[in-house]
């Protein structure tokens, strides 16, 4: 064992031999300090939104007021760090724009519908505290629950939206009622009547929807869309989902914590002419003066320092290996 080794270790070996617990402790300290500093100093770090987030933001800012958006939320708190920031930003925009939405889960995640309902309750509580109108279940949004087989559900929605969704939700003061009686759903007849279909996911459900849903091209204001499907995904799923964005199979993609920060940045600053790579002359006002920077920005400094730590440790390990090799004549 290394600890009982009487031979003194070289500098190169020392660089490579931090204990597991020491590495963990350093990470906890670095991340904790960053989170606290960010909170107390109210830091707003710079960010340059990418094309995927810009197009996503442009679409949700362009859909007409009163439209109904479908939100397939397949996430649980296992990816709260990324998904909650994205989902909260999405809800803030939809609620500020008076867009109705139906939220549901179409994968084998029994916790997901309740997690989504809890996030909506949290954002609603913040709205009430800020003196904004509460978003009312049944009249402004509905929960469609869980569809364990996302593949078959997507196919059924394409074939007949009305028969694909046979669920109940609870109107205020009334017993559970067929969701098609809700103001959120009553105008929808076929899948193209949906304003946008947004997927919040940490898994490959984006594949399932791309493979099955097909929307007619539509233009909202100055924003022409080839499809109504957009994705908010975790960093792990980012590179794969990004390919669908590149081939215009989805209208926009928000990736990971960086994507959440990008959306918050766009909410604060909007899109000025010449900034959007896709729509050069597009101009969109943000929500200046409102609470736009939230969970994404609160975590952003810590992302910098944690990634910085990883880079430093990898460099340390490699320098250590190089020094040791040089000392032992390349045999280490």
């Amino acid at each position, binding site marked *: 064992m290394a600890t009982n080794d009487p031979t003194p270790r070289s500098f190169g070996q020392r660089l490579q031999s931090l204990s597991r617990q020491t590495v963990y402790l350093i990470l906890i300290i670095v991340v904790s300090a960053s989170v606290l500093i960010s909170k107390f100093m109210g830091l707003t770090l710079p960010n340059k939104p990418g094309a995927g987030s810009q197009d996503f933001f442009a679409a949700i800012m362009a859909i007409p007021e009163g439209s109904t958006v479908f939100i397939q939320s397949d996430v649980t708190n296992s990816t709260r760090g990324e998904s909650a920031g994205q989902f909260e930003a999405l809800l803030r925009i939809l609620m500020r724009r008076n867009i109705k939405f139906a939220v549901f889960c179409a994968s084998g995640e029994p*916790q997901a519908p309740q997690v989504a309902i809890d996030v909506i309750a949290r954002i609603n509580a913040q709205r009430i505290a800020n003196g904004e109108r509460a978003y009312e279940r049944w009249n402004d949004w509905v929960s469609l629950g869980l569809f364990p*087989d996302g593949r078959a559900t997507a*196919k059924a929605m394409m*074939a007949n939206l*009305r028969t694909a969704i046979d669920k109940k939700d*609870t109107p205020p003061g009334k017993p559970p009622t067929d969701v098609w009686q809700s103001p959120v759903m009553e105008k929808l007849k076929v899948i193209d009547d949906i304003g946008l279909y947004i997927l919040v996911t940490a898994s490959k459900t984006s594949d399932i929807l791309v493979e099955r849903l097909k929307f007619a091209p539509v233009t909202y204001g100055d924003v022409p869309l080839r499809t109504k499907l957009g994705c908010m995904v975790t960093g792990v799923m980012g590179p794969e989902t990004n390919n669908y964005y590149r081939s215009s199979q989805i209208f926009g993609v928000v990736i990971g914590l960086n994507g959440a920060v990008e959306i918050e940045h766009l909410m604060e600053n909007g899109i000025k002419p010449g900034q959007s790579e896709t729509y050069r002359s597009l101009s969109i006002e943000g929500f200046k003066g409102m609470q736009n920077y939230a969970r994404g920005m609160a975590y952003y400094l810590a992302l910098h320092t944690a990634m910085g730590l990883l880079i430093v440790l990898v460099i340390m390990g490699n320098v250590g290996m190089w020094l040791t090799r040089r000392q032992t004549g390349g045999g280490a």
Partner: protein
Amino acid sequence: MNWLFLAQAETPEYNFWNGAPGSPALLTKVVIALLVGIGIMIALMFAPTRLRRPLVALATFVAGGFWMASTFWPTAPDAVTEGRNASEKVAIFLKDVTSVVADFSNVLTAFLLGLGIYSIVSVHGKRILKRQQDWSFSVVLFASIVLMAIFGYADWMDEQNRTAAVTALSPGFWNRGRDLLFDGMLQNMDAAMFSLIAFFILSAAYRAFRIRSVESTILLSTALIVMLSLMGVVVSAWDGLAGDFAGGNLKLSEISKFINSNLQTPGIQAVKFGLGIATLAMAMRIWLSLERGGLNS
């Protein structure tokens, strides 16, 4: 026959396939059908060995056959609701029953999701009964299942009967209990459990990420650029320093965009093309029960 009969697009007239809710006629049909279903299940238990594989193959083929037909059968124009010829009639039939098949699929998947719970109960039940090592933890596990189930169902039942005014006044005992267990405990545990990977990924990168070959050098360099491009402060500083030198193409945001568009995208696309073809081939083999092992073992 109207194949929307199971989809409940509108309240139909009562016929052989349905019945009034709570009526003796409907209950009788349900019980008889259940007994028939269980009878078939029991009969299958005594099915000869040589019949087993064909039965499984038939079930797989019929289930997959529906979606194959719905994919490749020519569709009828949207405006056509009554088929004018045999082809259109089939197309409309396939479209109509899609939601019924999706319902069956969802319900069956839900039933099978219970397998995981059954497995947990079975493993830990045996551990308690045999007083194996750490059996007390299994008791805690059972208590957690029961507690969550009780509060979850009670809250749901409560919600069905409560009015909004009452809920606004007080969330209720069952709701508080459910919220404490679900949001207070389960969700925090879920987040904590998956966040542990951050420690392992850092430790593994420190120990194993070494520049030893061309491949590892390329991988490490790309990962470094991607990570730096995800750090807004670094991007801002780098882009500021690079300015418009070389047409602004030395900005970190431009470099990462170039990698993303011209190297990462086609690389992943090529992998997915390969995977796509392989998945398609495997799917056909499973559908036609040509695959050895698994379902056909």
